[in-house]
């Protein structure tokens, strides 16, 4: 099952004119946001994007832009009030996020 979060919020942006068709974005995206359309990547499931930034980081052409961040209310809250603890510590479930994985 593929979970979907809020629609029309992602900051993901792809400049297809820069794409060289290497396919790295398709490989690294954990949400299958991209697919190939005539050897050029295109965004086909935009609302599934979780803004992890993997695609932008691994695009050798710099064709992808996204404001990458962690979708964690606790971290946003800590950040907003400038409190310590915005990173993973014992009170943050986020480090257990990919539990059965690695």
């Amino acid at each position: 099952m593929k979970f979907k979060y809020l629609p029309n919020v992602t900051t993901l942006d792809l400049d297809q004119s820069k794409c060289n068709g290497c396919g790295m974005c398709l490989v690294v995206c954990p949400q299958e946001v991209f697919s190939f359309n005539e050897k050029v990547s295109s965004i086909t499931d935009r609302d599934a994007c979780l803004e992890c930034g993997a695609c932008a980081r691994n695009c050798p052409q710099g064709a992808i832009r996204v404001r990458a961040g962690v979708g964690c209310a606790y971290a946003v809250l800590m950040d907003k009030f400038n409190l310590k603890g915005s990173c993973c510590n014992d009170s943050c479930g986020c480090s257990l996020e990919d539990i059965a994985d690695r």
Partner: protein
Amino acid sequence: MSRNQKELPMAGSDNAAECCPDPANSGDSYLALEANWLSGQLETAAGPVWRVDTTLNRKDQVDAIKMRLGIGRMSFAVPPGLYAAGNPDDASPVIVSANYKLSFDSLRREFSGLNLWILVLDTGGINVWCAAGKGTFGTAEVVRMVEASNLSEIVSHRALILPQLAAPGVAAHEVRNQAGFKVIYGPVRAADIPGFLNAGLKARPEMRRKSFTLAERLVLAPVELVGIIKPLIGVAVILLLLNLIASFLGDGRFSLTFVLGSTISALLPFVLAVVVGTVLVPALLPYIPGRPLAWKGWLLGVLLAFAYTTVIAPGITLLETAAYYLVLPAITAFLGMNFTGSTTYTSLSGVVKEMGVALPLIMISAGLGLIGLGAAYFV
């Protein structure tokens, strides 16, 4: 301890210092005394390398339970460096791992019968996904560890297999430029690695997807519950004081059984709200209508308020009933919103948007409800 590992500076510690205790400063002594997950050493062109056990022992399992409960999690970091599984040679694949012990354990457990190298980075004792997001599992750390471990002397090929979830932090093309190693992103789940290796380093599409199954959602509940115990104790103390005051104001006589009994029954709806917010919301996540997690939490909270005021405590006043309808959904909405940090699909933009709407409503609702509950003691 190989000389390479000995010479390693505990880098990443500037990162670690600002937020987390330095996980691996025990270095040698940790390996010698604590690391019963090692089984001997392997001689290589660049000195001896520790070999890891591919079965988890009792201590590993106890550690795993502690980590899931959030007890002293930071003391479970694997010293960074190169390790061997089985009897790898210069052609064996190199798997790159975070030094979070749970990640490392779930990795080596899959390696029985395989011969390969494991390059453990210093991610500050944090798992791949979070470390990649923070940049500690990043291009610079991969390059640094490739060099520190003298990997190019040990293997003849020039390829690294990284967990796909490291991709937010690692730029494959830059690792190639800087370290001369090609990055191949492996599957999301450790259990898929043998299949990935057998298929000639090809991941099937389902190996690339980040799943979020019932078990994966529920395994997070204990750490959330442990985290909520402190505020819950606070609530219990406030309720105890309120009941003490109410007891004195009532007939002026103090009865310990009455005070304790009424405190416990007043605490019950809060405990139920915590269970609903941390266990039921994650469990029913895909089945609760609507997308914002605060909304999902709120819906279940309304159901809880209904159940509590009609079934569990039908005799309460109208004021109390109204107050519970305000307080309980506010708590479950907050806990639902908090669960965004544990999900595998929520984006920062979405969370910011959701919080902008939900947080003020939660605070108003909780505030009014608490005033109502407090007032109910004295009317």
